[in-house]
């Protein structure tokens, strides 16, 4: 999933200082699952904003809503009418969610409440780990299912640098050297041979990336009859 964290409260307050009708909009997929911008966090943020505005003596109307996915047009379209009653939308979605909202609700400003961090998973309760850089050229088949592009500080694909100490990354003692994890996994899988030889350096993709799926387009045309 996409992992994000809420921006510092002062920054959010500052973004909203000129608005009196605000819709705090949560996202029910990644943001809800990483416990950063789902229904519960919408309630808490709205409450904090109301309290802050009241303390400062200002008027404000703050609405709360959470939709299934901010990055999906059909969910965004469902709230178009409700959104039009507000001056501004404060999105608790990821960067893609904010942009999809801004595109489809294009007469209302959409502001980000979150800093989107990475694609990852929870490594343990309360700890999230980056696992995928969406590099578009997956090599997990030869690294024991552990990604050095996302999990090595230098994204090295031919093996580790010489900087690890006691199995820890030179950049942070809290981070295991991913190449040692890969070595251990491949040893266990009896696949150390996959580490030998030199492959091509990565071909970095041009941003923004696009994906055109002819099968989906055809499908729609057929259904549309």
């Amino acid at each position, binding site marked *: 999933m996409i992992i994000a964290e809420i921006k510092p409260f002062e920054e959010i307050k500052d973004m909203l200082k000129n608005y009196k009708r605000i819709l705090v909009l949560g996202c029910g997929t990644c943001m809800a699952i990483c416990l950063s911008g789902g229904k519960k966090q919408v309630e808490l943020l709205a409450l904090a904003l109301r309290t802050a505005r009241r303390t400062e003596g200002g008027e404000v109307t703050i609405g709360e809503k959470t939709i299934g996915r901010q990055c999906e047009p059909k969910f965004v379209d469902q709230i178009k009418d409700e959104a039009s009653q507000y001056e501004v939308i404060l999105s608790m979605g990821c960067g893609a969610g904010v942009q999809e909202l801004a595109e489809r609700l294009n007469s209302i400003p959409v502001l980000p409440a979150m800093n989107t961090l990475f694609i990852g998973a929870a490594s343990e309760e309360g700890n999230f780990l980056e696992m995928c850089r969406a590099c578009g050229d997956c090599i997990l088949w030869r690294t024991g299912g552990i990604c050095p592009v996302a999990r090595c*500080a*230098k*994204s*090295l*694909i*031919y*093996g*580790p*640098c*010489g*900087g*690890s*100490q*006691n*199995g820890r990354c*030179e*950049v942070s003692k809290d981070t295991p*050297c991913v*190449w*040692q994890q890969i*070595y*251990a996994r491949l040893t266990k899988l009896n696949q150390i041979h996959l*580490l*030998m*030889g*030199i492959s091509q*350096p990565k071909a*970095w993709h041009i941003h923004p990336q696009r994906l055109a799926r002819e099968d989906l387009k055809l499908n729609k045309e057929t259904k549309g009859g």
Partner: protein
Amino acid sequence: MGFREALQSGKFLITAEIGPPKGTAIDELLEDAELIKGKVDAINVTDLQSSVMRLGSVAVCHLLKDKGIDPILQMTCRDRNRLALQSDLLSAWVLGIRNVLSLTGDHPALGDHPQAMPVFDLDSVSLLNVIRKLNEGVDMAGSQLKGATDFFPGAVVNPGADTEAAFEMQIIKMEKKIEAGARFFQTQGIYDLNLFEKFIKRVEGFKTPILGGIILLKSAGMARFMNKNVAGVFVPDPLIKEMEDTKDKVKTSISIAARLIKGMKDLCQGVHIMAIGWEKKIPMVLEDAGL
């Protein structure tokens, strides 16, 4: 005789390392270089060592070349993408630089501009591949060069990698570096000759010359600091005690380095001396080691 010829002659090789200053004051660096000229086969010039912004390696290598010293250009992948790396290699070649040491490089987070974007478009292995291509007259994209290079490429290895996985991965990567064209290796600083001998036995079959790393110890404190903070460096307790008990730190440091060099003479093809500010003491180390 240049470094490449010295290596091919089979003599015991001596290289030293100097680090460009932060700024444009190069008098002291050139003075140090002049002092060790003729006593070493080549001088490595570091590339923004420890990720600290400094004067560049290509410029300093060129200045050494002008003084009749054969430089080894250290090139890291930290700050340049494949376009800049290849272009800088061509620049180095036309400035008379003939030896290149390929390194991945420290992460910028360890240096004095920790917010810099880490590049690492290539790494030490793929950079060696690129050097080989430039030597063949083509660039990484396969386009013909108008004038090829003929670099003598080298690489580094860390024999003191501290876990089994780290050590085995060093060996695997060393093989890749040889496959990619490395013609010599310089190692991280060595203080334990028994461990070094085990490493040498392990890689004997690779048939690629190795220059054992010597870091001059300046104090017991420095030894303890390196043990804690420098990957692959381990100074054994008796050496730390020797530095602690001595009344003349310089003399003891020189004597330790000379002993290590003597020990390496039967193990590998040369030594690489990292004096870290004590460059002026290198001639005394060599003299003490009987070189």
